[in-house]
């Protein structure tokens, strides 16, 4: 408690608060910009923070992390270009809303649900970090395999109207994930001697291509008909009615995001996708999904920001990074001489609570900024298309090139762009493909790891209670619609 109050005390330190504010603004900016992610920014800022001293430095980096995750949703909603991979689930419904002229609603809901998800996960972090961190040890390859199967099991229902097309897209995604060096055999697959492929398909170029470039190419074709701008409503931000509608999605997303974020091998992108799945599964308005559902924005946004707090759990409590970004934050902590681990909670509680307090502050800052700026961001849809879409193309090129400075990634992005364009014209949805790409690779890898651990004896899966429970839930989830239909058939004649 004393530590907690000591930590809160930093909130009145103007120097620290200035750092948190700057970090938040910077985070929103780089998060929204394809090509510079939160993790890149944190890595580039790391040497600069050395001189700051541990608390301002960590508060600054933590604020960038929190805000960048939210920032990614801005470009996802406005121009269908997820600024961060974790915002791709947001683009699915958010951009559809912007097309309907509801950009302000989507942006506002994204800010609110992001902040609630983020704050929820920080409170979980404060209360249960050491406890939750133990769960990481119980999750080995068999458990992750079951979780990946659970995530993938929904892909027939998510996306377009045709289940067969959704499954095809998902299978393509899984196939895409097998490109590159196979972790468990060291064999290069589908690489054809190209270095960029040998490392596996990266998410960023594929996502930017599928979403942003695919949309841009589609806009080229629809140039003539785009005269009708439905922007009258664009600046309206959500009110009580919308929040009431999304209440359930936000809490569902927050819980899922915190848990998945806390698992070191999965990150915000997976959290957002599973958050999207489950939001749809439990929604009362399933028919709105795929056509611009506000719940479909709230769920994944809450989930990917909750994953931020979640991924700090293993980082702080075990010294094991919960995501690519926390790996760099961890490096930042270590460079500052802070050694994360369970002892941090007893030995340096002030520092720890200062981190929590600054993350809370960052969440509140971007909530305020996000709601305030939503009106202005929404005006992006008023930019003449002849300026907007070519600029989106250029930013997509830099977005694919930026993270690894590779022209090969740009080529991959352009190919994904053509696929995205063809998908739009043939009634496929990118959603199942992304699920296949993100979860399929994990599924194969963890299955093979499990078999090595089990000495090729599949029956040993039965000795893993968590894995079996997850697989059972998956089976129930898949069979439930079937059963309920049978039941209705039996009952109906009466």
């Amino acid at each position, binding site marked *: 408690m004393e530590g907690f109050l000591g930590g809160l005390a930093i909130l009145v330190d103007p120097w620290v608060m200035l750092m948190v504010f700057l970090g938040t603004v910077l985070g929103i900016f780089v998060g929204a910009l394809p090509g510079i992610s939160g993790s890149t920014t944190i890595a580039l800022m790391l*040497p600069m923070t050395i001189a700051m001293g541990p608390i301002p430095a960590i508060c600054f980096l933590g604020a960038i992390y929190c805000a960048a995750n939210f920032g990614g949703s801005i470009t996802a909603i406005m121009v269908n270009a997820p600024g961060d991979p974790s915002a791709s689930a947001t683009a699915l419904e958010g951009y559809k809303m912007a097309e309907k002229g509801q950009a302000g609603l989507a942006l506002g809901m994204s800010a609110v649900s992001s902040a609630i998800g983020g704050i929820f996960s920080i409170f979980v972090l404060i209360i249960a970090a050491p406890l939750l961190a133990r769960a990481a040890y119980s999750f*080995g390859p068999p458990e992750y395999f079951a979780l990946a199967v659970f995530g993938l099991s929904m892909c027939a229902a998510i996306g377009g109207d045709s289940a067969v097309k959704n499954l095809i897209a998902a299978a393509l995604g899984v196939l895409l994930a097998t490109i590159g060096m196979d972790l468990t055999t060291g064999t290069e697959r589908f690489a054809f001697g190209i270095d960029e492929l040998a490392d596996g398909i990266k998410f960023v170029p594929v996502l930017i291509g599928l979403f942003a470039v695919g949309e841009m190419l589609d806009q080229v074709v629809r140039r003539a008909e785009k005269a009708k701008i439905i922007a009258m409503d664009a600046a309206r931000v959500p009110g009580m009615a919308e929040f009431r509608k999304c209440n359930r999605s936000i809490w569902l997303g927050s819980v899922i995001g915190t848990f998945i974020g806390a698992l*070191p091998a999965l990150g915000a992108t997976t959290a957002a996708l599973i958050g999207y799945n489950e939001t749809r599964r439990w929604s009362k308005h399933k028919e709105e999904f795929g056509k611009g559902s506000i719940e479909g924005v709230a769920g994944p946004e809450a989930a990917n920001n909750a994953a931020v707090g979640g991924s700090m759990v293993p980082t702080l409590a075990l010294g094991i990074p919960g995501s690519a970004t926390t790996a760099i934050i961890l*490096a930042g902590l*270590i*460079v500052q001489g802070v050694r994360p681990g369970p002892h941090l909670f007893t030995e340096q509680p002030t520092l720890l609570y200062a981190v929590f307090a600054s993350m809370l502050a960052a969440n509140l800052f971007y909530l305020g900024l996000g709601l305030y700026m939503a009106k202005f961001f929404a005006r992006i849809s008023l930019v003449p298309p002849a300026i907007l879409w070519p600029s989106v193309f250029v930013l997509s090129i830099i977005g694919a090139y930026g993270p690894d400075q590779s022209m090969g990634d740009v080529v991959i992005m352009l190919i994904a762009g053509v696929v995205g364009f063809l998908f739009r014209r043939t009634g496929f949805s990118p959603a199942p493909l992304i699920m296949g790409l993100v979860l399929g690779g994990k599924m194969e890898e963890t299955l093979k*790891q499990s078999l090595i651990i089990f000495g090729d004896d599949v029956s040993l899966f039965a000795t893993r209670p968590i894995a079996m429970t997850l697989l059972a839930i998956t089976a129930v989830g898949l069979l439930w619609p079937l059963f309920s239909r049978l039941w209705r058939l039996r009952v109906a004649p009466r």
Partner: protein
Amino acid sequence: MSFITSRRSLARLGLGAGALLAAPRLTRAQAAFPERMIEVVTHAGVGGGTDITARMMMVQAAGEFKQELVVVNRTAGSGAQALQYLASKPADGHTIILVTQTHLLTQIRNRNVPQFADLVPLVRATDDPQLVLVRRDSPFRTAADLVAAGKQRSLRFGGTHVGGVDHIAIFSFGRAAGLQQPTLVPFRGGGEIVINLVGGNTDSALVNPAEAESQLRSGELRPLLALSEKRLPGFPDLPTAKESGIDCVASTVRGFCVLKGTPEDRVARLEQGLVRAMSGPIFKTYLENTGQSPDSVVGRAEWGAQLQAFHESGREALQALGLLR
């Protein structure tokens, strides 16, 4: 402690600057090298451990060379693209590469990239010895238990991908200790290796102390051996493998090289400048805080010898594992 080190290295920095001032003729003779920005090529993405090493070096190197330094990340192909980028630049010392064991393995397996003989070692930046770890309730109380069990059955070791640096180290350890060939359980990175060791999915693992710092402190993992030449300062009671009769050393090393054909005076200038930059307080603190060996930074003689030794043992191990064609 850290205060004293930084004071001492500050003094050394001052001495270095003094030496530069005292030798104006030398500076003039070498004309203006470096005359423009120096590029540091790495195979790590922005924020990777190797990338951070480069950036930590750069903090003080810019002042040392009176020139800007910039990191160029060429991630594809496990170092292949980084090596090719280096080869695409003139051998004038303005492009240096951050080399790890991964590059050497890539060179052995891929003839199309600049080979080990095409590189001139400059300076080692970090040297991070590995420990043999088991979990708290493991039946192996000592290294002898582990070795005895390993002779009966194939032990499962967590490591990175097949054919990677960990695989080679595990193979070499197993052979030096006379074990049945260990089974590699491949994971993505040190965090997963540690978690699965604690979680009981593997029997043992070779891990850098910093990666398992928290678990070692809380006692969830126990070190059995240090795979270093000398006992580690952080683990004075831990025997080295060599003391226990297992002739095996394994450590994660990173250091700088330039392309062959770079003029000798420039190689010397780069070596001297980099050593000085990395003896500064910022890099020292970085080494200390990340638990890496404080005498990581060595000149080209020692660094070259270490690379040469790994080049040979790596080739041998890849051959024995059937990974070389």
